[in-house]
């Protein structure tokens, strides 16, 4: 295929995918817009109904009291009772009891006396014995009469803030936008999966075959897995190839039996292998990469559901029975999760190489399923830690075996893009998972989200069992990677250690300790809804998926890699210190956005930096092994993150902990700069980019 063919094929595929995504998004957007309008239309009457329903319950109790002979102005514990109702129904802004001429007798705390008292006096009269509702200042007010045996004693008033209605509509709007974004990513992933697997891939192969056949080559068949028309054409072509080979064989046999020489042109064909005999026809194996991207997306999508609420769920199960501070105890299940993920990766990598990727993948998905179901039933922290750690083993196994599968099923020149494809599925999956997890948690509760995630794991396990085969595209036998000897080789390189401790490990510490642990807790303390917590965490993933690669490429043209990495590390730390200084929701959200923006831009360059400073090690064990060992080593940061968070929150508080993370980032950057100072000239040139995707 020529370059122009490739370009036009790519463009054609892009048009089809873009058009389909556009259609789906347009349809979803329209439905959402209409639903939003409908929601807005019914919300106020629904809230009115709720006010009325709550009001009748309070009204009934007051009428009962009056019926026992308690004078309406002598009722006891009224404010406390009203406050309890207000706490249980956040849409209510006030409850008030007035006498029959509208003089306020009792109110809930924070009653807006100035705004509504006058209205009560003006609007009530002894003739009015029916329920009324209307707008009073900034409130939707419902008034219910207190009538006992035909005598009017007063009125009960319930007010809903108009702001509540506005905020509710805004929240639903955000939810719809989140769902639309996730729909976009999900559609993109699924279209890519089906389009590439069923149409684009077979077409490309057909083109290649026809071109090859046009040149008279009939020496290969293609292993066809698709069962559509393209698959059938391939099968027919396979049959034609076999038939031509048989004919050649027949001609040769006929010639040799009649002791005639083969015609010259036929002899040439047989000689240069453009046509092969049926028993020497080789089967070309197809790349099976795209399907793994789908599994990776689906698995990590569901696995990340709990990310936005896990610290809060753990907090609910806390019981003070350990001689450690509460915050530290709460961080331990998190830290252990990352310990078990790292162990599963270290042990699961060689294991999956030995027995094939399919089994570890399925076992991993099932362990994740069992872990999540058990976590939903956890009644204390120890049980939760055990269950969640089981899920962590599953998570690690799926991660390492899917990555291995991508490598196994790609040709040597495409291994780097295979790994990039894995990470693309991983990041878009986690991004969607964070957003949807938060929305689900708010609507169905924490435990049920674990069940939903477990269901997805089951679906992934079943699909893997049905669709993944053990065959590898490359038949070269590889020795299982040995993690610890390779790690020892890398640990001898001081500059590798500088990058790990100055850049990579702090980044992981902040990801698990700050983004996944501290942020949900901090936001929950500010009464931020679960959906919004999910969206804030989503910002972090969004930056990594979309902004990082673009910015990285743009800045690379302007500055050298090292300077760029150092500068952006300092800026990302500065963003966190700014967030700490602001100490509010907006500050945190903007801080996370900027941190992720700068940090995501450093991630690719840190990989390139490692390859650059580990040239000897790359020669000895290969680039893929260096990257694999380095990324596993960085997981120390994943484990330290939650523990550091626990300690900093317990001893200093949230604001100081956020600032602490900023300082850790900046200190890491300065450490990196100082350790490379002597080799500054070495980084005066650009580092080759061809390894960045590795």
């Amino acid at each position, binding site marked *: 295929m020529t370059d122009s063919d490739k370009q036009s094929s790519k463009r054609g595929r892009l048009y089809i995918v873009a058009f389909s995504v556009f259609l789906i998004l347009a349809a979803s957007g329209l439905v959402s817009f209409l639903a939003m309008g409908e929601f807005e239309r019914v919300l106020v009457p629904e809230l009115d109904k709720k006010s009325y329903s709550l009001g009748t319950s309070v009204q009934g109790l007051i009428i009962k009291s009056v019926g026992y*002979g308690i004078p309406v102005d*002598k*009722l006891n*514990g*009224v404010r*406390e009772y009203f406050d309890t109702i207000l706490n249980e129904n956040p849409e209510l802004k006030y409850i008030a009891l007035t006498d029959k001429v509208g003089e306020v007798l009792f109110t809930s705390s924070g009653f807006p006396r100035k705004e509504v008292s006058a209205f009560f006096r003006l609007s009530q009269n002894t003739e009015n014995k029916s329920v009324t509702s209307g707008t009073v200042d900034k409130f939707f007010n419902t008034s219910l009469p207190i009538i006992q045996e035909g005598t009017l004693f007063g009125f009960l008033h319930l007010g809903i803030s108009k702001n509540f209605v506005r905020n509710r509509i805004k929240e639903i709007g955000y939810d719809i936008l989140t769902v639309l974004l996730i729909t976009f990513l999900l559609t993109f992933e699924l279209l890519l999966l089906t389009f590439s697997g069923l149409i684009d891939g077979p077409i490309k192969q057909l083109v290649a075959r026809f071109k090859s056949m046009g040149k008279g080559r009939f020496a290969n068949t293609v292993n066809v897995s698709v069962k559509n028309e393209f698959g059938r054409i391939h099968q027919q072509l396979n049959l034609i190839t076999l038939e031509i080979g048989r004919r050649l064989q027949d001609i040769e046999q006929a010639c040799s039996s009649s002791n005639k020489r083969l015609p010259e042109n036929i002899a040439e064909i047989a000689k240069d292998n453009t046509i092969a005999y049926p028993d020497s026809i080789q089967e070309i194996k197809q790349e099976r990469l795209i399907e793994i991207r789908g599994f990776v997306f689906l698995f990590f999508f569901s696995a990340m559901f709990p990310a936005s609420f896990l610290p809060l769920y753990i907090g609910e199960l806390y019981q003070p029975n350990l001689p450690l501070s509460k915050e530290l105890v709460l961080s331990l299940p998190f830290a252990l999760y990352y310990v078990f993920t790292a162990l599963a990766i270290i042990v699961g990598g060689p294991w999956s190489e030995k027995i094939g990727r399919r089994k570890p993948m399925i076992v991993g998905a099932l362990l994740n399923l069992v872990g999540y179901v058990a976590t939903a039933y956890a009644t204390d922290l120890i049980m939760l830690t055990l269950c969640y750690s089981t899920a962590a083993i599953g998570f690690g196994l799926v991660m390492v075996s899917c990555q291995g599968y991508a490598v196994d099923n790609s040709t040597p020149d495409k291994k780097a893009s295979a790994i990039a494809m894995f990470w693309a599925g991983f990041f878009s999956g986690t991004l969607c998972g964070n957003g949807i997890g938060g929305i689900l948690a708010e609507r169905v509760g924490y435990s049920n989200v674990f069940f939903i995630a477990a269901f997805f794991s089951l679906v992934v396990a079943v699909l893997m069992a049905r669709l993944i085969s053990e065959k590898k595209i490359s038949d070269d036998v590889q020795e299982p990677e040995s993690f610890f000897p390779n790690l020892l080789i890398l640990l001898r390189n001081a500059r590798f250690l500088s990058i790990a401790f100055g850049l990579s490990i702090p980044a992981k510490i902040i990801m698990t300790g700050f983004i996944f642990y501290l942020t949900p807790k901090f936001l929950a303390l500010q009464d931020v809804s679960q959906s919004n917590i999910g969206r804030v965490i989503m910002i972090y993933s969004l930056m990594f998926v979309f902004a990082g690669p673009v910015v990285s490429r743009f800045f690379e043209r302007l500055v050298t890699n090292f300077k760029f990495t150092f500068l952006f590390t300092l800026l990302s730390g500065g963003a966190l210190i700014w967030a700490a200084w602001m100490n509010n929701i907006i500050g945190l959200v903007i801080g996370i956005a900027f941190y992720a923006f700068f940090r995501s831009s450093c991630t690719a360059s840190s990989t390139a930096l490692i390859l650059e400073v580990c040239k000897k090690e790359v020669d000895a064990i290969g680039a893929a092994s260096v990257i694999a060992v380095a990324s596993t080593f960085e997981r120390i940061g994943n484990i330290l993150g939650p523990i550091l968070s626990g300690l900093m929150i317990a001893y200093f508080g949230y604001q100081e902990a956020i600032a602490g993370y900023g300082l850790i980032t900046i200190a890491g950057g300065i450490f990196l700069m100082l350790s490379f100072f002597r080799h500054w000239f070495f980084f005066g040139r650009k580092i080759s980019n061809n390894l960045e995707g590795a």
Partner: protein
Amino acid sequence: MRFVNICFLVILVGLITGSPVCGETTSPATEIEKDTFSIVMVPWRGITDAEKGFMDYLKRQNIKVEYTILDVKKDKSLLPGYVQKIKEIKPDLVYVFGTSGAVGLCGTKDNHPADKYITDIPVVFNIVSVPVKSGLVATLETSERNITGASHIVPLDSQMKAMQSLINLESLGVVYNPQEKNALVAVAGLEKLSKEIGFTLYKAPFSIGPDQKTDPASIPSTVKGLAEKKPQMIYLPSDSFLVANAKSVVAEISSYKIPSFSATEVPIKKGQALTGLVSRYYNVGQLAGYKAEQILVHKKAPKDIPMETLSRFSFMFNMTTAKQLEFYPPLSVLKVAEILE
């Protein structure tokens, strides 16, 4: 003859409920044994809601019972004679009301010689406040004897929470019979709670008369002395003297405009005490009936049947007294309270 004064009645369950049980045909669908069991009931002061609950439960379970009632009439001296009488009757089970009655029939766990107490016939006690502390049984899980039963007492900390839902508790008075073990146990519990929660406890025991019995004549002076200390509320523990003199005690307390909180039902229902978190006697009686069923029908040994109290209680409020004191229940209490008018 001693038994001349004994109210010796052989009645059928129906005498209480309105229809005879002896010979009563039960539903053919029932799987319960049709044998008629004989039960001797030893109530403290005639048939109360507690006994009605007990008998109604057994009737509802289609268990045919022939009852013999030996009423103590609040006179402990009758109990030794009843012990002998029960030994002569040899019933399948003995039911006894109250701590004094139970200890009088069965002795304590450390002192119950077979010639003076009932040891070989299963006994189910009812309305015993503190079966362990009164020395009746070893633990609530097992009596280690041929007895079991039901307690009516609401845990003191639950009562305290109920009081705190009515007032911001800073001082509490308690009137009690110093000769009654239940009352002494309750007062000790209150002392402990007063230190834990931080309120002042004023204790006011009634005086002992020349006959070495608690003197009802001391009620006005005892209450007056306590009222002068101005407690926010006065607590009436589970105490048979208090139950017997509920009206006069509560009237005295109310005359000082002090609200009263009772640990038992009777002072609220019949004595006009203001309020209390109580186990209804009828319900406790049913729980005792369930224990009797376990022994008679399911052939379980009494020592294997744990002693229990109810898990749900009634927050009673006497509205007549509330109006008199102008102490109305808060709305949150009114929502769940059982109002007596």
